[in-house]
């Protein structure tokens, strides 16, 4: 055994484990139950088991495509099954369609366009909601009420992430405040212009 003062990394010996198998077994329920790699479902890594998946088809029947479905150009075709949750629409839809049509997943432009589409979608949806009976409400939809019911201050005491939590309201409310300010100055200018 080499000098115990010198940390393991600098000498060849493997130091004896801190706890024996028996100690670990006594302390931790199930210790070592999966020691045998055969007991780990990830072994072997590529386990060819086509008969066990529950599929009873070679290639799945195709789900009807009721409207043209956007797809990655790295795919040979629209996959036989796909989600139909929120079909493309409006300006955000056009941006997203361009991202899919023009750029593969390997291109940063594909993802940046999709992010732009997301922001346009969020903003046009907010605006559109004001013309409905169910307008967006930044107070109820952000759940900030929980700050009072679930200990907002108490929960953050001493936490380092509280430093950037202060940015969250700025990110959420900032554009609303800016929008209100622009509207306010716009209206004021208009009123002034009409008065003159």
């Amino acid at each position, binding site marked *: 055994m080499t000098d115990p003062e010198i*940390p393991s*990394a600098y000498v060849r010996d493997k*130091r004896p*484990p801190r706890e024996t198998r028996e100690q670990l077994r006594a*302390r931790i*329920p*199930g*210790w*070592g139950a999966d*020691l045998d790699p055969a007991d*780990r*479902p*990830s072994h072997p890594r590529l386990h060819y088991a086509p008969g066990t*998946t529950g*599929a*009873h088809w070679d*290639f*799945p029947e195709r789900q*009807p495509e009721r409207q043209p479905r*956007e797809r*990655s150009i*790295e795919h040979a075709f629209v*996959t*036989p*099954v*796909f*989600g139909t*949750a*929120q079909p493309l629409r409006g300006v955000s839809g056009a941006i*997203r369609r361009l991202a*899919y049509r023009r750029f593969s*997943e390997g291109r940063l432009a594909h*993802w*940046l366009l*999709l992010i732009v589409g*997301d922001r346009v*979608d*969020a*903003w046009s949806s*907010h605006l559109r909601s004001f013309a409905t009976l*169910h307008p*967006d409400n930044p107070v109820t*939809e*952000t*759940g900030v*009420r*929980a*700050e009072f*019911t*679930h200990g*907002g201050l108490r*929960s*953050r005491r001493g936490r*380092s*992430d509280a*430093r*950037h939590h202060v*940015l*969250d309201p700025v*990110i959420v409310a900032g554009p609303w405040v800016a929008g209100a300010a622009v509207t306010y100055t716009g209206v004021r200018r208009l009123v002034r212009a009409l008065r003159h």
Partner: protein
Amino acid sequence: MRAMVYRGPYKVRVEEKDVPAVEHPNDAIVRVTLAAICGSDLHLYHGLMPDTRVGHTFGHEFIGVVEQVGSSVQNLQVGDRVMVPFNISCGSCWFCARELYSNCHNVNPNATAVGGIYGYSHTTGGYDGGQAQYVRVPFADVGPVRIPDWMHDEDAVLLTDAAATGYFGAQLGEIAEGDTVVVLGAGPVGLIAAQSSWLMGAGRVIVVDHLQERLEKARTMAHAETLDYDEHDDVVVELKRQTDFLGADVVIEAAGAEADGNLLQQVTGTKLKLQGGSPVALNWAIDGARKGGTVSVVGAYGPIPNAVKFGDALNKGLTLRMNQTPVKRQWPRMFEHVRNGHLTPRAMVTHRFPLEHIAEAYHVFSAKLDGCIKPLVLPDAA
């Protein structure tokens, strides 16, 4: 039906939506009895995942009752109580045939680099999720499994993702007997990863986080040593010190793309969105592992690039392993572990919110208020 709906970053509400219909002969419609919010949902909620559309219903952890089946469904019947893996998979493509259920090639037209996931944006296929009263479950003969009679509903719902992912994270670590395993993140995924590491023979398990209730849980539920990164100027140095300057044999990264611990990376990555999330935990994993060791990444990252210290990984000869969890492959063995108490998913549940309070539920989990570790969503308790 009532369903959670995304309205833009940090904004969600409950809306009235049509009950989903069978769109393919192997579809089932499931009435959701219990759902959960996953750490991954927070990435969507914060607007980090490209092609997250307004109106989307999140939720990839849910259990329920089969309400309707398509004409080709053989393995399920109306009335069955089922747990549904978060992956949508066809069971017959090149990948599914090799049990890579998270990498199915037949269910996600929007991308080839990721499989199909319930309620996880159009980048994973555009399927509405289970934080709702009903959900469309494609390939009903492949994914869902009847919930065993002995299993608690709260264990079942966590097995659909968080618990399976923790176990998978430990598997990817290729833990050898006596290994020192460091787990970054004491969320639901990290806590189960720590428990699982012992099952695979770890000699030491150290869990890193900064939230006290979670570190406490790591000590009591997972019998692990803990390290509060707020208390150390440089976590990597502390990990070296604690491992006799070797570094950890295995690091399991269970924090993901919103990792904290470096204000600059956090703000540029997750607030200003100048990179694809924050690489802090990933870099701690790479720098905290010993040379020749393994880094297992189950923390989620999106398709936009990150400032990852790849050179360190190369120069240290690390093995990097990662994936979305192929959930169903984990179940047979995990069911045994849950039944005999070696894994205790439901011990992590701290909050149960009615669906109608979904906005508060997201806020509490996102800001980690009130000691929240795992919030469940009850779709019928209005």
